[in-house]
């Protein structure tokens, strides 16, 4: 029966009914803190149990545990800070014990924060611990340096969902768990992606699927870099792949609303914990998972798992697949003995360039049905 949620129970801080109405009324009078789109997804993920066992934005003791020991005060593994930054002006007059309203950029009241602690932090130390560098060219570090001066921690309540144009693909962990059970799946492998699928991805997924009951494809939807595939393109491309190349009843696809931290190894653990909460028993970790530039070794995000014997989800480590002319198929270095001259690697950049020119990549790189779906967009990439 699926995986146990991280910490033993799924958090649910979504308020409904009469209590919601009362709290919404109360919120009008409170100090307001505006959450940008990414921070709003953190709020939703906490409330919906995606980040179980977190019940709010981290207080200092939690943050320190995460930064220095990669664990929460309860000893549970946790590697990425989930914090809310504020300026002194924004929070002036607010004291520990007060409630504040969390609002979206368009002014919608999203929820409440029960302020437990307002505290300062050292950005350079934060960056060094999470990203293993203080280099401001690293996108995660740059983002850390741009954060406001103070952090505010405490439990949250969700009153309104932020705008979500992918409602059809949005499931909470309680829902995926029921779904997996209804399908009769006992073992489920989670796949993290922020790309339209080429055959390298498909072979990794299918190799894993050969040993478990179901595959959970969980594209990360949210802020991306220029030149990345648009969210709607990724979803449509996967629909085409699943429809044409996967056995019926072997795949579920739902989105993960969050943002890339580019924290490499630490983020791989974070991604695994999230999929554990969704009910996965296994999680695929490939080459340079959640990496950027050359900040992390190609398999560092796999090695870090040896520090967490109590993670509660089994990582499946993969080497990259490529096409080998001598083998006459798609293989990886674990199963192909041939030299580089026979190998054609799946270059994301090359595939993107072909699609940009309106060309179908060769069918040993990308399924024609997938390429055709992508080519329906005038520009399938983030501008």
């Amino acid at each position, binding site marked *: *029966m*699926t995986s*146990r*949620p991280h910490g*033993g*129970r*799924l958090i649910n801080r979504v308020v409904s009914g009469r209590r919601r109405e009362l709290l919404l009324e109360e919120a009008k009078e409170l100090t307001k803190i505006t959450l940008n789109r990414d921070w709003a997804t953190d709020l939703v993920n906490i409330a919906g149990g995606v980040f179980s066992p977190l019940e709010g934005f981290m207080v200092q003791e939690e943050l*320190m*545990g995460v930064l*220095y*020991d990669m*664990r929460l005060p309860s*000893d549970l593994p946790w590697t990425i800070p989930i914090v809310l930054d504020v300026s002194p002006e924004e929070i002036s007059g607010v004291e520990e014990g007060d409630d504040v309203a969390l609002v979206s950029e368009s002014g919608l009241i999203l929820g409440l924060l029960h302020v437990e602690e307002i505290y300062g932090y050292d950005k350079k130390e934060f960056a060094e611990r999470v990203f293993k560098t203080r280099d401001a060219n690293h996108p995660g570090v740059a983002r850390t340096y741009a954060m406001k001066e103070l952090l505010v921690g405490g439990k949250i309540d969700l009153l309104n969902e932020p705008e979500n144009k992918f409602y*059809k693909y949005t*499931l909470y962990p*309680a*829902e995926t*768990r*029921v*779904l997996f059970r*209804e399908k009769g799946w006992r073992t489920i492998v989670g796949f993290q992606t922020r790309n339209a699928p080429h055959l390298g991805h498909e072979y990794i997924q299918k190799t894993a699927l050969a040993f478990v009951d179901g595959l959970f494809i969980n594209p990360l939807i949210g802020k991306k870099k220029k030149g990345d595939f648009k969210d709607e393109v990724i979803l449509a491309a996967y629909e085409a792949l699943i429809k044409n190349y996967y056995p019926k009843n072997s795949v*579920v696809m739902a989105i993960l609303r969050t943002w890339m931290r580019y924290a490499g190894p630490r983020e791989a653990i974070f991604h695994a914990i999230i999929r554990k909460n969704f009910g996965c028993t296994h999680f695929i970790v490939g080459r340079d998972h959640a990496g950027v530039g050359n900040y992390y070794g190609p398999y560092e995000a796999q090695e870090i798992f*040896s520090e967490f*014997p*109590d*993670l*509660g989800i089994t990582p499946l480590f993969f080497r990259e697949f490529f096409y080998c002319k001598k083998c006459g198929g798609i293989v990886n270095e674990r199963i192909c003995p041939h030299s580089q001259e026979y190998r054609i690697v799946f270059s994301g950049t090359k595939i993107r360039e072909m699609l940009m020119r309106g060309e179908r990549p060769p069918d040993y790189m990308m399924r024609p049905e997938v390429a055709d779906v992508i080519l329906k967009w005038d520009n399938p990439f983030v501008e």
Partner: protein
Amino acid sequence: MPVDEEVSEKKLSRRKFTTVSIPITLYNRIKNLIQGTGFTSVSDYVTYVLREVVAMHEAERSEEPFTPEDVERIKEKLRALGYLD
């Protein structure tokens, strides 16, 4: 007890420690076992092994906290979204 134990703990750690007694024979056995491995102290090893075992025992105890009504409501949404027939 040996004093070289916690010296090897990562200096950056903010973790607080407490003492648990184990037989000295077991201590020596572990000390021999971990030579040349990634474990830098008996405490490191014991912590690792205990976490593994404790997590396993915790997992055996967990139950899904859904009431039958929750399940019905969720199944309805899953059908509406096309995830279930």
